[in-house]
């Protein structure tokens, strides 16, 4: 049976749909900036879901107007939490964007696989080890970078 079109159904569908689209974008997108935008959308969906947790269709806004008998109010606690989450979300966006700027300055690309490739090569070059080319083969023993490498020849015998 198809449920009737209630406001709660619409709002829950929107929240779940936004979260799903955002998470799918985070997982599937190739461009890193598109990934940040998908994170913004997933955040919006989660915020909507949290406010929806305290929602009643027959209630009024949680504002005290008189000290007498009060009508039913929606729950103000999730709203306060979401108020904090919105601001924290903008902070997370700013952090992600600054990391993107650093990545572009260093690797000159924002393609996900290309950045991973160059970062892997960079780490291998810094550690002085050959990099693993195969993604499927077992990793084997990969020496830990710089600290063991310095302990191998403490006498400075590398001429």
């Amino acid at each position, binding site marked *: 049976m198809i449920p009737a079109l209630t406001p709660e159904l619409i709002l829950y569908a*929107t929240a779940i749909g*936004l979260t799903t689209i955002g998470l799918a974008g985070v997982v599937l997108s190739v461009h890193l900036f598109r990934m940040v*935008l998908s994170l913004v959308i997933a955040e*919006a969906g989660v915020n909507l879901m949290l406010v929806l947790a305290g*929602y009643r269709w027959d209630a009024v806004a949680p504002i005290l107007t008189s000290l007498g008998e009060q009508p039913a109010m929606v729950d103000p606690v999730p709203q306060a939490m979401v108020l904090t989450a919105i601001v924290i979300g903008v902070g997370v966006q700013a952090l992600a964007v600054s990391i993107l*700027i650093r990545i572009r300055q260093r690797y000159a690309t924002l393609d996900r696989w290309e950045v991973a490739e160059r970062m892997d090569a960079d780490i291998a070059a810094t550690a002085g080890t050959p990099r693993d080319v195969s993604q499927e083969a077992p990793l084997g023993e990969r020496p830990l970078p710089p600290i063991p490498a310095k302990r191998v020849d403490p006498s400075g015998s590398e001429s």
Partner: protein
Amino acid sequence: MTTIELWIALTLALMMLSAAVMVLLVKNHIAAVAAASVVSLGLALLFVLMRAPDVAMTEAAVGVGLSSLILALALRRLGLWEVDGKTVKPNPLSLNREKRDG
């Protein structure tokens, strides 16, 4: 919730979902940022319908205004700011930094 509010919620929900899909599909990055801010704007209006006016005010100011501003400025910095197919170069400061790093 009255019937008119139900229809408003339905319209906003469709708008937000289609804008969210557009963020992932559209090619231009400025358009993607604009679609993300459309999602935030619809969310602010839904908060008004859900009797949360304070959250709606914060979402409209921070989510639509500040977040879009940050993302658009980052687009300039990342060199993805394309208008009519022409890429506007990032500002001289970041160009100098790239030369220094590379």
